[in-house]
């Protein structure tokens, strides 16, 4: 066996190394030095994140089961960055009584999920893909159940776990049908070949519907979104923020890979219309349900459902621009969503308030937190100077580039939904800045790590849209992927 092939999976090895370091330190260090796990994990992971930006090679391992290319390294680096911000913002919570009991476990589980997501993104064989998917979703269920003293955490974990198993069963059922259509191999390339040869049989339509449904659960697209709000509300807020950005971003990219590289040949015959229906339902229903939420975590859950719909626009565009704008959207979404969750977390850690009604008059007591929250919410809504506006513009441009009328209609519906979303995002801003009532949350100074995390998020929100070299970088790596035949099946 050629052991040198392991060196192609540098990002995975980095995450695995951090996992091992944290695991060994947590196991063998004395009781008194156990709190050093937190800085150790953050420093090591920051090193891996920085290193990740320099891994731009192309390569494959395990007979082509695992591939890496510049675009894959790019999305992994972006997810690394998001996970690093989550880790930084998690420090006050993990040092509190609630988190410190199982401090090491939190980091270990988080790194294992990240490792699984990276395998899932890089997999070009369905066996490795399923292993990656499961090693991403199983530890996440354990993370949702993290807070053993709180009943909501268990309830959320039950809901997450059972829908996760159900969805992976559905996904694997779809894969078994795809396998029946293949030439006996589960490699993406071989499957794509036999799908392109065969016509669109009933079995193929069923298989694609099952696969899309399975992914729909992971991404919380609309008919499959019912677990989202409950899980987001019940899980510890740190885990919620991780679940809403990193897990969603990686699943979205893996979804693009599967749809383009396996089912690309039947794009306009089968899955284009399925995706249209899903996107319209996701954006609209996510928005409408978000309006009536008062709990901030549930509110963000429905907001993230509708944001997932916008991310899917990049998939249905199925071209270089769509892919670029999807990755850029994920990047901006990471910064904006983590900004909102950073504020929610800061307030929850100090006072325990999570309802939108408790945010009334927040600017009188905590102007900086209100400011950060306003920036993040404006970015999510897509108000011009902020990054969210540019990511929305790019994703709409990518979707309309092919020029089909159906895609224009789709973008129009998405555009109308942006206005609806503006209403409920501004409800938060109104509660914080305009409501005349006396503030509920007392003035406090949040922990320095939380402030640092929020500063990073704010900087990202303000500058990502204005500094075009970031977009240029993503576009460059996407073009390399396209010349290597990422969209070859789509014609």
């Amino acid at each position, binding site marked *: 066996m050629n052991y040198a092939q392991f060196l192609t999976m540098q990002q995975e090895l980095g995450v695995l190394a951090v996992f091992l370091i944290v695991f060994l330190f947590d196991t063998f260090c004395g009781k008194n030095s156990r709190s050093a796990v937190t800085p150790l994990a953050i420093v090591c992971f920051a090193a891996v994140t920085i290193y990740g930006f320099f891994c731009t090679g192309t390569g494959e391992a395990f007979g082509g089961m695992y591939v890496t290319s510049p675009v894959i390294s790019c999305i992994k680096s972006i997810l690394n960055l998001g996970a690093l911000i989550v880790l930084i913002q998690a420090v006050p919570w993990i040092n509190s009584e609630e988190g410190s009991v199982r401090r090491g476990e939190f980091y270990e589980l988080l790194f294992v999920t990240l490792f699984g997501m990276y395998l899932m993104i890089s997999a070009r064989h*369905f*066996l490795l893909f*399923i*292993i990656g998917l*499961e090693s991403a979703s*199983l530890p996440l*269920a*354990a993370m949702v*159940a993290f807070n*053993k003293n709180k*009943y*909501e955490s*268990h*309830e*959320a*974990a*039950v809901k997450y*776990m*059972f829908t*996760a*198993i*159900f969805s*992976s*069963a*559905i996904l*694997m*059922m779809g*894969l*078994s*049908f795809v*396998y*029946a259509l293949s*030439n*006996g*191999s*589960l490699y993406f390339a071989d499957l794509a070949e036999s799908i392109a040869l065969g016509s669109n049989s009933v079995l193929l339509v069923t298989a694609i519907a099952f696969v899309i449904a399975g992914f729909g659960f992971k991404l919380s697209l609309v008919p499959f979104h019912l677990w989202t*709000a*409950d899980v987001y*509300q*019940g899980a510890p807020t740190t885990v919620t923020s991780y679940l809403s950005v990193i897990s969603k971003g990686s699943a979205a990219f893996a979804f693009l890979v599967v749809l383009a590289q396996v089912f690309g040949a039947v794009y306009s015959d089968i899955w284009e219309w399925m995706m249209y229906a899903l996107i319209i339902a996701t954006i609209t229903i996510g928005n409408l349900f978000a309006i009536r939420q008062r709990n901030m975590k549930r509110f963000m859950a429905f907001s993230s459902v509708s944001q997932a719909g916008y991310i899917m626009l990049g998939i249905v565009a199925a071209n270089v621009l769509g892919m670029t704008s999807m990755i850029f959207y994920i990047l901006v979404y990471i910064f904006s969503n983590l900004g909102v969750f950073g504020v929610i977390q800061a307030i929850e850690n100090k006072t325990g308030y999570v309802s939108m009604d408790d945010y009334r008059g927040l600017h009188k007591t905590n102007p900086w937190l209100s400011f950060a929250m306003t920036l993040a919410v404006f970015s999510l809504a897509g108000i011009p100077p902020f990054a969210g506006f540019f990511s929305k513009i790019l994703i709409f441009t990518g979707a309309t580039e092919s020029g089909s009328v159906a895609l224009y209609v789709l973008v129009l519906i998405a555009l109308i939904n942006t206005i609806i979303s503006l209403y409920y995002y501004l409800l938060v801003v109104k509660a914080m800045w305009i409501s005349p009532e006396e503030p509920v949350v007392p003035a406090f100074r949040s922990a320095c790590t939380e402030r640092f995390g929020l500063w990073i998020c704010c900087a990202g929100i303000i500058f990502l849209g204005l500094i075009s070299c970031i977009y240029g970088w993503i576009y460059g790596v996407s073009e390399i992927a396209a010349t290597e035949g990422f969209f070859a099946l789509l014609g």
Partner: protein
Amino acid sequence: MNLTMLMYLIPSLIMFACGVYGFITRKNLIAILISLELMLNSVDLNFVIFNRFLFPGQLEGMFFTLFAIGIAAAETALAIAIVINIYRSIKKIDVSEITKMKF
């Protein structure tokens, strides 16, 4: 008697449908977990059947099944652990009681 592929596939698909039905209608968390196991096992069966009848010279489906069985076991273990947590905190494992968070 010569058994065709369909004779194996139909029980497998019935098993999957039973699993989905059980997942939706059962009230007990353990019963739901059993339904999920039915679904996962029918997937395993499907892979084995397709491999045996369509691609007798290859083993990819069999390998997938072996890994899927392992993954299903891990899923069950974790789900049972979570159900035990629920039981410890409210002394019930009935889904109609696990409704603190709704809508």
